[in-house]
């Protein structure tokens, strides 16, 4: 069954009509890859799911519940973690404080799930190393790590990440792939926008490709990565 | 049109001085109706009052007065509350060659170096205030320290006061920023000046505006600790609540409704109680006096409003007011008037400290200097 479904979603930003009827399904417990050229509408789709833009037509359904008009905090409270394209780091807060805010259950730093933190530290050493530093001073990649770390500091049922591998060193990317695999094993559903096709292929179960505001292809990752011609036609290059 | 006599009243209807301005206006209207026996007309000519709100802004007052004279064809004008505004208005009267009766602005220079022949003033000037207070305090063996705001109003007052004091000696002049809120430091300075002086020790305060030093002075308990008395002039009733804490305090005031004994005052007090259930205040009396001056002058000219006629009529003219008879002296058109030496008494019936009459200081007793050059 599908955890998340978009049915004919249209989104306007001010005067611009950005999404022209997006149909997308994210199956429960799987990793879904959202691909597409720059400007295809991937980020806008994610923002629409999170209620940061609101669909002017169509429906967004999460676990059978219609969230088309829901407010962002409500959607998040349903167990969705989101990492935006710009990472959304709170630059003036320390890394610790950033994490603390992401951990909704904890009121103070010492109340965060220690085990989970260790797991995160192992994967993203920088987060531990700069625990008490202002997040704004982190390097680009370190910010990216922190952004993902924040999203997984507490268990969530749906994890939405916009370009997780951006700016990360290969070693870290490998860690991250392992981490997502582990989360998936725990039953977390994952929706990723990804440019790094190697990454996409390693992780993805199903794939959806967008082009100017529509989903132009959806299916199993295996089939997609096998079909060079399809990739060529949709992405303009083969893996 | 030609049958009406148009009088412009410019005053701070809004802005910081709103409360004062409103009093003046009330008094002015009451005065007109009293002086005309309720007809609001002189020699059959209707009196039309044009209200102008200068918001306490000099530039605005200036253009409003011009508007009144030029566009509204006012024959003469009365106003205004703030000295700064009044000073800015003086040249306009000269420009349009029309009479301006200044009320209640107090700056000496209005009837002093900034004066021109179209300017009259029913309100008292700083000198009159100061001199009357001097008369009330001036005794051998008294040391006086003055406490005033550090601006024209304060320095004017202190200067006039000093000139008027003959027997007592001025120990020190303390000037504090007009907007002072914490008086501890100022009071300390005064104490340091006075505490070791022999004989009677007095702090004489000239202070305008909401936050007065009186509560601070009372808290410091100067009387008990250093035998220092506090003295000051009159003020509006809300400000006199602070006086309650100085029973026996002496000074001289321009007006308090209980002080003058004359039919005009009685009439005004009665009328005011009738209309507002409260006694008239400081500026009500001023407005009333201005109205009396206007009507008396018009009666003299037989309703004529030609400026030169008015001036001729008003120079040296005497007229009845809630403060008794006032006289515009020829030289500077300042209205000579009585002031009242008072002593404060606590009276639970009143929210404020009640000034009791010690004696009325007659105009003749005060040598108010003539500062204008004509």
């Amino acid at each position: 069954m599908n955890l998340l479904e978009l049915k004919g979603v249209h989104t306007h930003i001010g005067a611009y009509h950005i999404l022209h009827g997006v149909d997308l399904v994210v199956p429960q417990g799987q990793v879904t890859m959202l691909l597409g050229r720059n400007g295809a509408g991937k980020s806008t789709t994610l923002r629409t799911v999170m209620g940061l833009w609101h669909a002017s037509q169509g429906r967004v359904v999460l676990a059978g519940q219609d969230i088309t008009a829901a407010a962002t905090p409500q959607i998040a409270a349903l167990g969705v973690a989101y990492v935006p394209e710009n990472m959304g780091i709170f630059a003036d807060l320390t890394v610790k404080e950033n994490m603390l805010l992401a951990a909704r259950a904890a009121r103070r730093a010492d109340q965060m799930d220690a085990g989970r933190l260790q797991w995160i530290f192992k994967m993203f050493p920088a987060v531990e190393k700069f625990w008490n530093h202002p997040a704004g001073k982190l390097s680009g990649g370190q910010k990216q790590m922190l952004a993902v770390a924040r999203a997984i500091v507490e268990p969530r049922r749906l994890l939405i990440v916009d370009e997780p591998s951006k700016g990360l060193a290969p070693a870290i990317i490998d860690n991250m792939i392992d981490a997502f695999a582990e989360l998936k094993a725990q039953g977390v559903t994952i929706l990723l926008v990804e440019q790094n096709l190697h990454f996409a292929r390693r992780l993805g179960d199903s794939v959806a490709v967008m082009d100017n505001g529509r989903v132009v292809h959806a299916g199993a990752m295996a089939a997609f990565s096998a079909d060079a011609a399809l990739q060529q036609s949709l992405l303009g290059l083969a893996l | 049109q030609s049958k009406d006599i148009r009088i412009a009243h410019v005053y701070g209807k809004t802005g910081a001085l709103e409360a004062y301005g409103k009093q003046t206006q009330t008094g002015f209207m009451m005065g007109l109706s009293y002086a005309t026996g309720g007809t609001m007309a002189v020699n059959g000519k209707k009196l039309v009052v044009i209200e102008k709100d200068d918001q306490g802004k000099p530039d605005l007052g200036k253009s409003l007065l011009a508007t009144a004279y030029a566009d509204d064809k006012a024959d003469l004008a009365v106003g205004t509350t703030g000295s700064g505004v009044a000073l800015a208005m003086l040249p306009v009267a000269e420009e349009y060659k029309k009479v301006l009766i200044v009320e209640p602005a107090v700056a000496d220079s209005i009837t002093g170096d900034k004066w021109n022949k179209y300017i009259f003033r029913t309100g008292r000037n700083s000198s009159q205030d100061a001199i009357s207070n001097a008369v009330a305090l001036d005794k051998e063996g008294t040391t006086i320290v003055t406490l005033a705001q550090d601006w024209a109003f304060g320095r004017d007052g202190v200067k006039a006061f000093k000139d008027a004091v003959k027997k007592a000696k001025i120990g020190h002049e303390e000037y504090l920023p007009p907007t002072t809120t914490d008086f501890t430091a100022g009071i300390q300075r005064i104490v340091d000046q006075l505490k070791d002086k022999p004989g009677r020790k007095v702090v004489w305060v000239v202070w305008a505006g909401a936050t007065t030093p009186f509560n601070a002075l009372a808290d410091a308990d100067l009387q008990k600790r250093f035998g220092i008395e506090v003295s000051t002039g009159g003020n509006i009733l809300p400000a006199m609540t602070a006086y309650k804490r100085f029973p026996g305090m002496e000074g001289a005031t321009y007006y308090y409704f209980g002080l003058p004994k004359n039919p005009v005052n009685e009439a005004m007090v009665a009328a005011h109680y009738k209309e507002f259930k409260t006694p008239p205040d400081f500026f009500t009396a001023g407005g009333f006096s201005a109205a009396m001056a206007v009507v008396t002058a018009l009666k003299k000219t037989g309703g004529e409003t030609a400026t030169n006629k008015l001036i001729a009529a008003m120079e040296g003219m005497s007229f009845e007011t809630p403060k008794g008879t006032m006289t515009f002296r020829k030289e500077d058109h300042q209205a000579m008037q009585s002031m009242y030496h008072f002593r404060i008494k606590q009276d639970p019936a009143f929210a404020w400290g009640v000034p009791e009459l010690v004696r009325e200081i007659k105009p003749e007793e005060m040598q108010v200097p003539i500062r204008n050059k004509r």
Partner: protein
Amino acid sequence: MSRILSHDLPRSRWLAVILVALLLGLAFAPFLFPGVKALNVAAKVLVFVVLVASFDLLLGYTGIVSFAHTMFFGIGAYGVAIASSRMGAGWDALAVGVGAALALSFVLSLAIGLFSLRVRAIFFAMITLAVASAFQTLASQLSSFTGGEDGLTFKMPELISPSFEFAEEPFLGASLDGRLLCYYGLFVLAVGLVLALLRIVNSPFGRVLQAIRENEFRAEAIGYRVVVYRTTAAVLSALFATLAGAMLAIWLRYNGPDTSLSFEIMVDILLIVVIGGMGTVYGAAIGATLFVVAQSYLQDLLRLAGEAVAGVPWLAAVFTPDRWLLWLGLLFVLSVYHFPTGIVGRLRARALARR
């Protein structure tokens, strides 16, 4: 034509119409709206157009929020006031006054401009606020020099004083006297200054200022010395404000702390910029006109309204000239609500939508 406007055309038919109407209105004000008050209002509009436009150079184009702008306005006014009351009425006095004022403004604005780089935006705003209030206090402290709280009343050269009449008979209801000449003097000056500002903001310099406003860090990175540009902008706007102040003093023949230095004026300027539309010189012109006129006739309006609702207890209390400030406050709130991009922004957006 387009060159006179530095190719910064209204880009909206309505805007163009309004601007032309405005220009003509001001040009013939003495004859269209006879009467002392009307002329005073018109003159005040002229002064404020220049003042606000100069502030917009700082705020709208450079993104510096400064409350010290009235300080320079005041310096200009005091320059004329002090010189004319010391040296007596005369063109020489005017020249000296304006010259001295410009010099002082130059130095001060240079200092402030440089300081603005030391502390961050909000703090800078707050500091200028404090400095401005200090300056006002100073002005009333130095009473021997500035006339203190009471301010200075002074005369102007014969040619532009009311007493100078070059024709007995009023023409179209306007008396042909020095006031009239003075008004047209100001008119020409104002138009000239505004066009100059328009030129500046549309120059390469102006564009760099916008870049700095948008992203100071990157502007520096691509090779623009931010310090130089910011300071130049600060100085320029200060000088224009000084001239506006001089214009005010020339017209009023009076100046005092409340008249040219009060925080009220500063807030009015801000409001006008927002109403008109930030970062557009045209906005300054339209906003200034609307605001000054509204402010000058609000009380009269309320008087009428008050008579209309007389008797109705609450309404009567609200619709009285005494409560005009209430309505001014409302104007503040509403204009921020309804003109997020200012009138000019609105009109241009509409024009775009049409296409």
